[in-house]
């Protein structure tokens, strides 16, 4: 099967391969391979297989072990006549080919042999006569040699003479050069070819050193003078800024070659530069940084070893300039101005950096800028805080003198505006910091955002602390209270506390959301540093802080007011001897004082706190209805009780209380005028009741209290709409007096009315007189 497809392939190469094999065997290059091939052939032949049969005779025919007998036999056995005939034709053609090939080879070899013989014949003829020529050559060469020797010996003396003469001539030339040197140098100076001059002079220098004191004295002096001139010129050249840098550098090199003390020059120059830089600091307009950087570059080239000094200079320059910026910070400059300064500094720094990168100016600038911006932010917050504080203190110092109507309100508004506008302004300021596209700011952006957020957090916390100090509540800030000495703390105006309370609410409800929003919209990002404690600005925390502070202030305000009134009441109730009280003739003066105080509270509160929101009126109304319904009943009871015994009165009061809804006196205070006013009122009336309970009254004393309370009842109506609680408390006072009275017989209603009307008309008259 292999042959069916493989047969045509070997048949194609058949001829070429055989020729090669034949040639190989002829030259016997590879007898072993041929032998192997021969050995293989009989092996395949030994196996009588029909498919291998036509190939085997072809293989074996070229081998050494070819056996014509077997070949013939196989051929005859396997092929028919036609096949045999074909093979015969083919074989005959092959034999013919082989014959021609052989003939060709023989012919070629013969030709070569012929030409070789010819060559040998020619060589034989040429070689004859060579020997004689050689001998002739030898004799000629010996004669040449002898002649040259004679010439050499005869010329030897003269040559030495010539050499001596040559040396003398050279020496003379040198001496001539030295004698010419001064004039030559002068010529050089004239043409400003200082380099040549220096070259000449240094060339002559050894000679001067050797013989300068003797033969060449004048010459040396003259040339040294010339050289001094050269040095002067070179120095001048070095110092003049107008010369090209290369020329100046060359001058330095030349000077150095002349062993001139260059270091002095260098330090002189650098000092000059320092002065120049100092001037720049003082009057920054005079020289641009470009010039400076150029100078730096020049000096670097001129004095390659001066780098360290230059770096120091540059650093000093920049640290000085940043110092001035820092100083400016104290004057509270705007962000844009600051930025402009910083930007120009940054640009300068980069400019210089190109010249001397080793000074690491950008890093230094970045560092310093960071510090400065941080400081700027901090001072901005500090200023805002002190401004707010100033505004508050100013308002609280004024109203003491004259209590104008809307003055408090305006004070409130200004402080509100101060806070919110201040925050917004601050944010806008900081916006500039962020918005700049300078490389510098981009690097710092995240940090700045962090600082701003941190700053706000800190600011609000500090402001809260400051509020506490202002309110006098917190005395635990000794470091801050030094500013407001203890005397001032003792008499903190109550108004201020109220303003603070309202301000806290305002900050919590308006400012902080605004700031938060603003921060979120334009100052997001940040987080350059990792915060274990969460984000730097936590509005929730601040809000909580202010809410609680606001409440504290509000309570503090109420507390202060009630304290004041309480003192008044204390005096009223502890001074007279109630048990020997005289018959009431008029409403007691303390009621006037009390009303005056209330008026004060009302006017303060009305100006500062937000107005009426009539929503709790509803909840109060239930109380009011019940108590008003019970009013006449209890009035009757009181009247009737004249005859009753006090014991039953006590029980009746309790019974009455049972049926009355429990009056909530101590409700939560809210940030409304009504809430605050009514709280103050309630607390004061409660105090009144307690004071009454501590005394023992006679009949007149009781009647006095009754009269005062009756008058208060009508007067207090205008202050509050929580009438129920007030009248309840007034009645409680009355009851307390009743209980503490040895002989509780109330005034007759007509007398009561008469006395009250008398008081009212008196007040009216007073008002008219005032007008």
């Amino acid at each position, binding site marked *: 099967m292999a042959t069916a497809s493989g047969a045509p392939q070997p048949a194609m190469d058949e001829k070429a391969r055989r020729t090669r094999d034949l040639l190989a065997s002829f030259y016997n290059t590879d007898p072993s391979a041929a032998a192997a091939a021969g050995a293989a052939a009989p092996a395949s032949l030994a196996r009588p297989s029909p498919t291998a049969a036509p190939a085997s005779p072809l293989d074996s025919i070229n081998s050494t072990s070819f056996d014509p007998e077997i070949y013939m036999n196989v051929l005859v056995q396997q092929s028919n006549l036609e096949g045999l005939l074909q093979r015969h034709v083919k074989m005959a053609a092959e034999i013919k080919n082989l014959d021609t090939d052989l003939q060709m080879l023989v012919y070629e070899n013969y030709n070569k042999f012929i030409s070789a013989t010819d060559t040998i014949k020619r060589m034989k003829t040429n070689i004859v006569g060579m020997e004689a020529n050689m001998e002739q050559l030898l004799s000629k060469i010996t004669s040449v040699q002898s002649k040259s020797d004679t010439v050499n010996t005869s010329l030897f003396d003269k040559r030495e003479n010539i050499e001596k003469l040559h040396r003398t001539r050279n020496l003379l030339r040198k001496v001539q050069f030295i004698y010419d040197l001064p004039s030559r140098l002068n010529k050089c100076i004239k043409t400003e070819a200082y380099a040549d001059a220096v070259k000449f002079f240094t060339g002559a220098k050894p000679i001067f050193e050797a013989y300068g004191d003797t033969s060449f004295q004048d010459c040396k002096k003259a040339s040294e003078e010339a050289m001094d001139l050269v040095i002067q010129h070179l120095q001048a050249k070095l110092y003049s800024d107008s010369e090209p840098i290369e020329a100046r550098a060359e001058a330095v090199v030349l000077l150095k070659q002349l062993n001139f003390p260059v270091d002095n020059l260098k330090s002189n120059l650098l000092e000059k530069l320092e002065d120049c830089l100092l001037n720049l600091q003082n009057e920054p307009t005079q020289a641009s940084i470009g010039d400076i950087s150029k100078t730096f570059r020049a000096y670097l080239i001129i004095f390659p070893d001066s780098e360290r000094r230059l770096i120091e200079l540059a650093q000093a320059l920049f640290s000085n300039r940043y110092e001035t910026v820092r100083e400016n910070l104290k004057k509270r400059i705007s962000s844009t101005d600051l930025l402009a300064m910083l930007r120009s500094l940054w640009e300068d720094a980069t400019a210089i950096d190109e010249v001397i990168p080793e000074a690491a100016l950008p890093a230094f600038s970045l560092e310093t800028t960071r510090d400065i911006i941080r400081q700027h932010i901090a001072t901005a917050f500090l200023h805002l805080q002190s401004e707010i504080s100033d505004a508050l203190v100013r308002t609280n110092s004024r109203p003491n003198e004259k209590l104008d109507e809307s003055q408090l309100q305006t004070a409130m508004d200004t402080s509100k505006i101060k806070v919110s506008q201040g925050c917004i302004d601050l944010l806008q300021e900081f916006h500039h910091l962020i918005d700049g596209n300078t490389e510098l700011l981009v690097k710092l952006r995240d940090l700045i955002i962090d600082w701003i957020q941190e700053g706000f957090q800190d600011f609000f916390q500090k402001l809260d*602390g400051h509020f506490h100090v202002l309110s006098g509540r*917190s*005395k*635990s*800030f000794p470091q801050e209270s030094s500013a407001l000495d203890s005397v001032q703390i*003792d008499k903190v105006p109550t108004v201020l506390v109220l303003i603070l309370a309202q301000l806290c609410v305002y900050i919590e409800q308006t400012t902080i959301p605004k700031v938060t929003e603003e921060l979120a919209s334009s100052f997001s990002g940040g987080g350059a540093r990792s915060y274990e404690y969460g984000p730097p600005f936590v509005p929730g925390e601040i809000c909580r802080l202010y809410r609680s502070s606001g409440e504290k202030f509000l309570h503090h305000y109420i*507390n202060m007011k009630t*304290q004041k009134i*309480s003192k008044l009441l*204390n005096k009223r109730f*502890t001074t007279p*001897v109630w*048990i*020997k009280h005289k018959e009431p003739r008029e409403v007691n003066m303390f009621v006037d004082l009390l009303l005056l105080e209330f008026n004060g509270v009302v006017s303060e509160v009305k100006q500062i706190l937000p107005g009426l929101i009539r929503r709790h009126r509803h909840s109060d109304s239930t109380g009011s209805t019940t108590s008003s319904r019970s009013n006449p009943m209890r009035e009757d009871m009181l009247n009737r009780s004249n005859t009753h015994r*006090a*014991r039953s009165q*006590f029980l009746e009061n*309790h019974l009455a*209380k*049972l049926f009355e809804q*429990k009056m909530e*006196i*101590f409700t939560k205070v809210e940030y409304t005028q009504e809430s605050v006013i009514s709280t103050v009122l309630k*607390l004061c009336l*409660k*105090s009144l009741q*307690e004071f009454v*309970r501590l005394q*023992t009254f006679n009949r007149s004393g009781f009647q006095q209290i009754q009269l005062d309370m009756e008058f208060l009842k009508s007067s207090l109506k205008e202050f509050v709409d929580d009438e129920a609680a007030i009248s309840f408390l007034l009645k409680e006072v009355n009851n307390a007096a009743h*209980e*503490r*009275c*040895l002989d509780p017989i109330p005034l007759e209603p007509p007398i009561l009315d008469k006395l009250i009307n008398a008081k009212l008309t008196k007040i009216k008259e007073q008002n008219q007189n005032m007008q």
Partner: protein
Amino acid sequence: MQGGSSGIVYGGLKYQARCISDVRADAGSTTFLAGTLSLKEENEVHLIRLSPAESELVCDGLFYHPNEIWDLKSCPFDHRVFSTVYTSGDGYGAAVWKIPEQSGQSNSSQLEQLFELGGHTGKIRRVLWWPLGKHDKLISIDDRNIFLWNIDTSNKSAKLISQGSADMLPNLRGGAWDPHNHNSIAAISDSSLHLWDLRSMDKSIAIEHAHIRDVDYNPKKQNIIATAEDEFGIRLWDLRRLKHPLKDLPGHSHWTWTVRHNPEYDELLLSAGTDSTVNLWLVQVSSNDSGPDSPGSPKRQEEPLLNSYTDYEDSIYGIAWSSHDPSLFASLSYDGRVVLESVKPYLQRK
């Protein structure tokens, strides 16, 4: 009048009342003495005992007292002896009384007056016993003076030893005797607190500009006092450093009338006020504290108010811890209601 609270109510006082006192000398049970304040009726002193089942307060004795009682203190070493301060008309008096032997009768009986603390010219404010036990001295305070008495209950006699005058101070209001020092009391006036040395009757260090209503010594820790003030609520002080208070507690919505340390758990404070509430506070103070807290820290502290008992109809002027069972206290509101409450639920939370 029954409130919905957990407290045990004693409604036996028929009149208004201001003072209640724990009978410390009665070791066997929780007992209180309460005195009424009635101008026109015959006043009573009630001996109130917690029944053994701890379910109700029973009247263990009812005694008539000739005048209305403004102050009542039980003798700390004899459970049958107590002192009162009273008014009669426009006069004032103070006396020490003895409960008669046959107490326990349902009917009221007369008290035996051991002696009167005479000689006061002004309004008598308080009588103070040395709080922790047997001591032969007694103090009475009036507007202007502090009297120190040597008493002998068996001989029914009291001898005035020394007298201190308030001099330039405003009117005295009351005071407390230092349980750690026989010779020191804290006396409060209208605007200040002074420490008096009873040996020399000299006033020393003071808290100025404070409208103090009541003062109480810490029973366990020396030099710590609590004050109830108008401006600042309740404040705790270290007597060695009176510049700044150790602690500030908000107090009550109206006057904080009185403040008392628990005799056993000195971190527990009880205060009563005219806003008809009793507040229970938890305040940790170490007497070796290096100073007042740093400004920022109070915010981080937990809420000191443990509970506010609000189930009262009227102002509360009297509170007393039971020394027999320190987890109990009795409060007396002006309407004469005694309520016994337990602070156990709050103790466990500590």
